[in-house]
């Protein structure tokens, strides 16, 4: 009798997970990169349930997609600039069907048809942002900090926070030495490594999950941060200041892509279409502090948000800024030096 009961329990457990008749969209996105309300509104309108899982680096996202390639359980992912290019070249993506999207014309023309994806065959821009300097004004005078090179100053050692991301950290090293942050020259990359290695003993922590946290915890006072995180941090810590470094901030554009074996391509398109709506895009930009590429959405923004230099930099802020590009084979060189950097730190 008891065995029957056990068997019945097991049977219930098995069916408990497979009864999902409702449509499901598996969205793979960066941590804290989409407000909960937006997802709920989408589900309400379309009846499609969104399963939101997160990653903290392009590498982790890429590895997971490769791992699940055959069973391809993700319908939508949000790689950064250069990973769009990489994944596209490797044939990992499904082409976007523009007949299913209404609002693509809303996107800023300067952010479409880029080299990473000519004609936007495989990607639709979601948000763009910058990686710059964060300073805790309660501990360090923000006026003293103007460039990436300031991180090497004696008095800041031990209070520095860096991103946990190979390309962003090497951006700092390369720019400080005057090289392009998209360098593919192994000698330049090695020089950047040597420069960064000097900084490592003073680095308190690496964080790409929520780079504002080490500042909030009081562990670090200066270092790298994404502009949106700097905006979010203000809620709990008004002394955090965002600074565009003289050598140029990192500029990235995150785009929606559909993995080639995605199961629910139709829902993926519906979701992208929903994201292209000006009201939705405006809400996202306001909520999480990154810049929307959606031009009509900018009209809808609260003036305080639209004029916030942290989110929407002026032309002057962007003078030396450099957009991340695919570096091809050189990525392996970067990764090698990155491992050495972190192992030696």
């Amino acid at each position, binding site marked *: 009798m008891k065995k029957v009961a*056990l068997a019945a*329990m*097991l049977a219930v*457990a*098995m069916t*408990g*997970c*497979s009864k999902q008749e409702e449509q499901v969209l*598996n969205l*793979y996105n960066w*941590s*804290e990169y989409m407000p*909960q309300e937006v997802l709920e509104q989408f589900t309400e309108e379309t009846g499609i349930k969104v*399963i*939101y*899982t*997160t990653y*903290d680096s392009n590498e982790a996202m890429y590895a997971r997609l490769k*791992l*699940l390639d*055959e*069973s391809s*359980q*993700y319908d939508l992912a949000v790689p950064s600039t250069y990973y769009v290019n990489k994944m596209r070249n490797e044939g990992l993506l499904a082409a976007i069907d523009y007949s299913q999207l209404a609002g693509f014309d809303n996107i800023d023309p300067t952010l479409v048809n880029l080299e990473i994806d000519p004609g936007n065959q495989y990607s639709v821009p979601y948000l763009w942002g910058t990686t710059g300097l964060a300073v805790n004004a309660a501990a360090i005078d923000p006026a003293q900090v103007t460039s990436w090179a300031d991180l090497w100053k004696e008095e800041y050692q031990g209070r520095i926070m860096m991103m946990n991301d190979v390309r962003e950290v090497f951006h700092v090293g390369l720019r400080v030495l005057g090289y392009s942050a998209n360098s593919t020259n192994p000698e330049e990359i090695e020089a950047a490594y040597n420069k960064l290695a000097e900084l490592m003993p003073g680095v308190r922590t690496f964080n790409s*999950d*929520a780079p504002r*946290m080490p500042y*909030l*915890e*009081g562990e670090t006072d200066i270092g790298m941060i994404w502009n949106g995180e700097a905006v979010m941090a203000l*809620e*709990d810590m008004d002394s955090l200041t965002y600074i565009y470094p003289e050598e140029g901030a990192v500029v990235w554009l995150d785009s929606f892509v559909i993995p080639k074996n995605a199961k629910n391509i139709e829902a993926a398109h519906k979701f992208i279409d929903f994201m292209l709506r000006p009201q939705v895009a405006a809400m996202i930009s306001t909520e999480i502090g990154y810049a929307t590429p959606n031009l009509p959405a900018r009209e809808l923004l609260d003036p305080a948000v639209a004029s916030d230099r942290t989110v929407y930099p002026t032309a002057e802020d962007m003078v030396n800024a450099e957009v991340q590009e695919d570096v091809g084979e050189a990525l392996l060189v970067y990764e090698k030096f990155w491992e050495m950097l972190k192992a030696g730190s």
Partner: protein
Amino acid sequence: MSRWLPRIYLMLVYALLYVPILVLIIYSFNDSRTGYRWGGWSLRWYQALFDNHAMVQAMWNSLWLALAAATVSTVIGGLTALALHRYQFRGKQALRGMLFVVMMSPEIVLAISLLAMFLVVGLQLGFVSLLLAHVTFCLPFVVITVMARLSGLDERLLEAARDLGAGEFTTVRTILVPVMMPALLAGWLLAFTLSLDDVVVSTFVSGPSYEILPLRIYSMVRVGLKPEVNALGSLLLVFSLAMLVLSQFILMRNKR
């Protein structure tokens, strides 16, 4: 002096073990958003927890998984213990050895070996892969628990059964299973807890189609600043305590 010193020491270590948990419970009622400031008493994080559909779904998923994993590993583990106790067969030492190795293996080694296996056979990562993995690491613990109980068994009972003409299956059902029952229950509970708390193995063998609580918590904890985590931790503690009281109650009743 010599009587009090050990007691004070015991208390000190218990305090160390319980301070973080106490902090967790107190902070779960903290009205402030950051875990680093006190903002007055509030129940808002419990509210937030239940409003978070993904979280509630993950909670159910974890519960189902733990129920299934505990049940399957108890059935298989119970039978294995029975076989090891009762039968002579070739490879018995190898079987024991293998269970011992599973128990001692670092979880991460088990995790990657299972991931490799699932990829090779093309099993989709989700409920089934999680179940297989969880049963595998729970199995040896159930076997050990049940074996300990069986070793105290009075062999004359079994002889008597055979003399009375009971077949093997009947003997197992009418004598051995009742004897094993408390140990099976203990083993089930152990497996249930192990499954519910596992992070390492699940990180590798889960897919987005079946998200479980520890992984959800992991992504929240990595981001930090999630007071819901405190509320959830407190609830889990209350749940474990309830389970503990329940199991003690059942064991007591069985003893009588």
